[in-house]
């Protein structure tokens, strides 16, 4: 057994199995994620990277590969690749080389893509993926390299012609390659979500899948547990979480059916067709994969210095894993609540503003259950929340000093969410203050007891359970404003319980 195989065997605990006619099968997935760097200009030219635009408007003579044009690297893009590498706990290679990956396609005017082959800028790292069962899947990162995006071809505008727009041509991409450590379609989407969270924390990629800022190529193979890796197929450019799940499930099933019929898998590139819900062969590997890489003679090796890398490392924000650990340790949150709160940096910041100087668990509960619940209902994000962190905090203060009961607090929250008003104002305007005045509560209790002599007798005869009914009646009589604890205590006093 090689070290890799031993690691593999150790790693495989807990993978999800698929039942086939000949027994259980295991899915093995590796991903190549293309993440667009959030830069203003392209990787090797000064053309803008904004999404959309008129066709061929965001194109310089370099991007169009006009004769004599030379690439000059954008140092911000280099910095973002290093930042991302550090965020993935990866080795940063101080020496890396740009190579030409040669192939012909109309949206690739150079006839080659400038990429990094033998010497990538970032080496091995890892992404920790939280699984629904509470476990963690460590997905090893093989490498991250810098490369150019291609242009875009439109095939549906004309019966016999394709239209080409070079606006994306030359935009900087980070290709992040994982080891085949992912074991189910669900894990694949969780991995991608975690990667997206990290990139967004770092600010190196906006993670917008609709606009193509993040695209995934998925390598799928199947095997009987404990046996060596099977032949893989690559599914190209799947651009939504739902399609990723569907494509993997379809592809695994297809491979299992072939193998169980005594066939064999041919290594090939496949395309997912969301309309038909299937993958189909795209092109044969032998032909297209002879990319004849060689070092780009237009570009010298990229050399970085350790102090420069250290400087970037010092400027990294607190990353989701560390933030989550801190929320658990310092605030006593459950791992689940902590991971919900750290999924977006904005959410974590919002929560921390609410929790500052208050009970962190109550704050987490209100942010997750009440605020997220309400936001989900109207389809808004935390950035668009009608209730600010300060306002939610004041509401919790009113709850803590017993001005509001938790029931009243929920009512006030609903009004805050609708009107955007401060909780103090709502409480004053609508007279929603909780009644802690024992005189008023006692009067209400006496009234309820006088109106229900039969029930009073029952309690006195030992039917304690009816006490809850009395509490409810008193709360009703005070329009929910009485403090239920005080009501309960006073009732017990009346009945000598």
């Amino acid at each position, binding site marked *: 057994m090689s070290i890799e195989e031993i690691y593999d065997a150790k790693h495989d605990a807990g993978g999800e199995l698929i039942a086939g006619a000949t027994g259980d099968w295991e899915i093995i997935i590796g991903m190549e994620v293309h993440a667009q760097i959030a830069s203003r200009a392209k990787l090797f030219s*000064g053309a803008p990277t904004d999404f959309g635009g008129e*066709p061929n408007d965001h*194109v310089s*003579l370099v991007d169009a590969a006009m004769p004599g044009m030379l690439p000059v690297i954008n140092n911000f893009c280099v910095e973002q690749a290093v930042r991302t590498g550090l965020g993935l706990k990866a080795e940063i290679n101080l020496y890396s080389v740009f190579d030409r990956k040669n192939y012909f396609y109309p949206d690739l005017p150079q006839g080659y893509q400038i990429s990094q082959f033998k010497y990538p800028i970032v080496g091995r790292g890892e992404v920790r993926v939280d699984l629904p069962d509470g476990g963690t899947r460590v997905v090893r990162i093989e490498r991250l390299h810098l490369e150019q995006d291609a242009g875009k071809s439109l095939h549906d505008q004309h019966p016999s012609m394709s*239209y080409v727009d070079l606006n994306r041509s030359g935009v900087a991409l980070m290709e992040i390659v994982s080891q085949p450590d992912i074991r189910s379609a669900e894990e694949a989407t969780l991995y991608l979500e975690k990667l997206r969270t990290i990139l967004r924390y770092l600010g190196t990629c906006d993670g917008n899948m609709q606009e193509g800022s993040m695209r995934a190529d998925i390598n799928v193979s199947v095997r009987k547990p404990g046996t060596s890796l099977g032949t893989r197929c690559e599914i190209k450019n799947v651009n939504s979480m739902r399609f990723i799940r569907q494509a993997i499930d379809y592809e695994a099933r297809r491979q299992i059916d072939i193998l169980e019929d005594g066939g064999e898998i041919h290594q090939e590139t496949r395309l997912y067709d969301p309309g038909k819900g299937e993958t189909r062969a795209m092109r044969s590997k032998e032909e297209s994969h002879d990319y004849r890489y060689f070092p780009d003679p237009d570009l010298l090796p990229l*050399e970085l210095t350790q102090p420069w890398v250290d400087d970037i490392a010092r400027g990294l924000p607190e990353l989701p894993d560390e933030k989550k650990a801190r929320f658990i340790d310092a605030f006593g949150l459950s791992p689940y609540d902590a991971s919900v709160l750290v999924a977006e940096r904005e959410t974590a910041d919002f929560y921390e503003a609410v929790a500052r100087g208050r009970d962190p668990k109550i704050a987490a509960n209100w942010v997750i259950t009440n605020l997220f619940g309400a936001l989900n209902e109207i389809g808004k994000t935390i950035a668009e929340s009608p209730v600010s962190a300060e306002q939610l905090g004041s509401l919790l203060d009113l709850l803590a000093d017993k001005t509001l009961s938790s029931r009243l607090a929920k009512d006030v929250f609903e009004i805050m969410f609708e009107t955007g008003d401060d909780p103090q104002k709502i409480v004053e305007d609508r007279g929603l203050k909780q009644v802690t005045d024992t005189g008023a509560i006692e009067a209400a209790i006496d009234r309820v007891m006088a109106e229900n002599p039969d029930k009073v007798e029952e309690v006195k005869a030992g039917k304690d359970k009816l006490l809850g009914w009395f509490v409810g009646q008193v709360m009703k009589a005070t329009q929910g404003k009485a403090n239920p604890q005080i009501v309960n205590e006073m009732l017990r006093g009346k009945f000598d319980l």
Partner: protein
Amino acid sequence: MTVDNETVRRIARLARIAVKDEELPPLAGELNAILGWVEQLNEVDIAQVAPMTSAVQTTLKQRDDAVTAGHIPDDILKNAPETELGFFVVPKVVE
């Protein structure tokens, strides 16, 4: 390392160069001569020599992340045999 006619045909196809059958043997001969010469270079022991990446001692030139180009669609499309609605128009390529 030597190349045969089939290899030459494949390399030509990958590079999208049309090569007639009768041109294959002379091309294979030329390529083999070049490869022979490279093999001769391989005999030199360079274990202790750093790779030379440039004829002059210099480092990779870099630029700042500023938009300094673009917005010249007419220039970009000027040499295209066919255009429409601001796009290059090419014979249909669908995989």
